[in-house]
């Protein structure tokens, strides 16, 4: 199991070449930088995210970048560098939590739905398709509106509203794999052995249907960051005193832009762009490696026309 896992982790490096490898490496480096910032935020960030004074001295209001405050300060006297670093932590918390929720809810639902079939399956598929058909950002707004009323503007509330829009994807993938996997002989063999439905789902189907979930998680992460920032920008996410959130900071920076205060908006925005780029590169790189159909589809349009027109490809091969 462990060796297989390590082998799987090393696969992107051993089996990629050219662009895909560089995409993956660049993505991993970018993402890793943000993960390090997020995990070690208390040590990396010079100040707290809601800290407006240090050693008894108040920070300047909307001070430009300088030796004390590398990225400057904003109108609430907060240090922009610190907020950007702490923002990475918020983003990571929300994304990890929402993926965990998605897996914890979507995978079992998909398993049960696919395994039992019948009316339960129909209803669940209908509900999930309905959710999926909805514009996801609109749905996220509705959910975070409801949930922030219920749970306050906390990380959990935002994570849950992201969960709500991403669950259908996990549900579908798991449900469809289950539908095909449950016809396998080993499932019937388990039933012939006297295994109950619960045992069959846990010990026989689970391990064989969750394999596509990690890739799905990586691909969703980038999207989740954007949705989170969007929610924050609309003021529906996390309050600035609860945690540092890039989208929310961008919202407040909107007013600054007119008065030439560029640093409050640039750095959180840059952070969003970099992290989303990093995650997308990782996801795409992984997909290029792990998903042979995608790889082939990507290569075909590049190679085929040359072959049809001339014999250059043949020469190149030699």
């Amino acid at each position, binding site marked *: 199991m462990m060796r297989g896992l390590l082998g799987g982790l090393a696969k992107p490096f051993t089996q990629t070449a050219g662009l895909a490898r560089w995409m993956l490496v660049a993505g991993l480096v970018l993402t890793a930088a943000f993960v390090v910032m997020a995990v070690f935020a208390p040590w990396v960030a010079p100040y707290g995210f809601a800290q407006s004074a240090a050693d008894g001295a108040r920070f300047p209001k909307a001070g430009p970048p300088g030796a004390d405050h590398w990225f400057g300060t904003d109108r609430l006297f907060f240090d922009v560098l610190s907020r950007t670093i702490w923002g990475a932590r918020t983003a990571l918390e929300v994304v990890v939590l929402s993926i965990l929720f998605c897996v914890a809810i979507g995978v079992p639902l998909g398993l049960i739905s696919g395994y039992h079939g019948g009316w339960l399956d129909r209803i669940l598929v209908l509900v999930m398709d309905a959710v999926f058909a909805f514009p996801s950002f609109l749905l996220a707004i509705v959910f975070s509106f409801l949930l922030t009323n219920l749970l306050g503007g906390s990380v959990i509330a935002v994570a849950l509203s992201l969960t709500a829009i991403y669950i259908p994807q996990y549900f579908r993938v798991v449900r469809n794999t289950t539908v095909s996997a449950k016809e396998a002989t*080993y499932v019937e063999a388990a039933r012939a*052995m*006297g295994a109950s439905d619960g045992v069959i789902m846990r010990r026989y189907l689970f391990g*064989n249907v969750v394999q596509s979930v990690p890739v799905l998680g990586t691909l969703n992460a980038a999207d989740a960051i954007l949705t989170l920032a969007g929610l924050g920008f609309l003021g529906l996410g996390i309050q600035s005193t609860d945690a540092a959130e890039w989208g929310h900071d961008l919202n407040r920076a909107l007013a600054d832009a007119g008065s030439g205060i560029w640093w409050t908006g640039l750095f959180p925005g840059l952070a969003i762009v970099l992290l989303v780029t990093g995650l997308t590169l990782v996801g795409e790189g992984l997909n290029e490696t792990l998903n042979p159909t995608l790889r082939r589809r990507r290569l075909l349009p590049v190679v085929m026309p040359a072959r049809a027109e001339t014999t250059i490809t043949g020469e190149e091969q030699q």
Partner: protein
Amino acid sequence: MPTKPEPQAWQDPLIDVRDLSVHFELRGGILARLFGSDTGTVKAVDGVTLTVGRGEVVGLVGESGSGKSTLGRALLGLVPATDGSILFHGDDVAEMSRRRLRAIRRDIQMVFQDPNAALNPAMTVEEATGDALRVHGMKSAAERRARVVEALEKVGLSPVELFLSKYPRDLSGGQKQRVVLARAIILDPEVLVADEPISMLDMSVRAKILQLMLDLKQELGLTYVYITHDLASAKYFCDRIAIMYLGRVVEIGPTDEIFANPRHPYTRALLKAIPEPDPERALPRDLLRGEIPDAASPPLGCSFHPRCPEAFEKCGWESRDLRAVIEEHWTRQPADVYGAESDTVGDLAHLDTPATVARIGGKGAESAREILHRMRSERPDEPFWRGVDRVDDDGPGIRVVFHPGEDPALRSSDGVEVACLLYPESS
């Protein structure tokens, strides 16, 4: 002639199947499903009565689609019985709740055809084998391991330590089938239903696995229901053989008797189909014509009659046979003759509705009669003609009337039971 249904086998019936039927509803197209119209049923098992004695090896032999696997699965309650009963220890498996069924599967286990598919790819040999114990409530991993080691030794996977942590993909087909066997015997069952356990294995491994199964039977006192399409292996393995055709048992008796003196024409055809390894001795074989019919609408009368070389009047001839005969006749005709004849005979699609009266032709009775006559003189010994009672004129065409058919029930004939009208029912 010695009849040898082993006496102790009959005295101590372990499984008693009575009139078992397993029918599957066909789902049909979207319209049929919307309006809930009848889309027909497939009678996978249709009124089978079978007794399996303790310590006996009963073979279920038949072509694909004969219902032998479904019957085997029904014994474990893996497919629900539509009708009839399966008595095991006096309890009816067909009526049991899911919970009782799970418990009964301690005593009836199954070995599957494809060892590559029967093992969970995500489980090691130890987990796969021991899971049967875990399912039945053995919590302690150490205890399970001891039993697993014991079972693996019994099936000849040694040194056991080498195999415990392997995944199915690391094993050969024969080794996988041994693991499947180990998983089946680890609960100490009484009955093992083996569904073509050797058909997916290499020739060199088959005999070894069969021998292993025989050894296990000796050692553990097992009773086998051996499902196969391969009469040769059944001869080697079984005490009694039940030949199945289209969901029914058409002949059942002691193995020696079935081989020495096959009664049912289908059994005879199957025996002829066993390959002869020596090409010098290979006889010209008249193999069965056609394929096994659609179980959703089986032939009238004896369901084997369309393929039977010895069929006669009472076998249940019907309109679909007429279509088959006409179409077969056309395969031997040049294109212009075919064109002319098919023009005379008209559309044959309506013949697919089974009936003992068939109307054909539309351009004069005489021309249609002529075609029938030509066909008959071309193949006078075609059994189909025995079933035609008379041919009447019917407006612009003709009416072919068949002899009324009879559906043969199992009847005993010198130590075996056979479902064929050639053997008169004796009281």
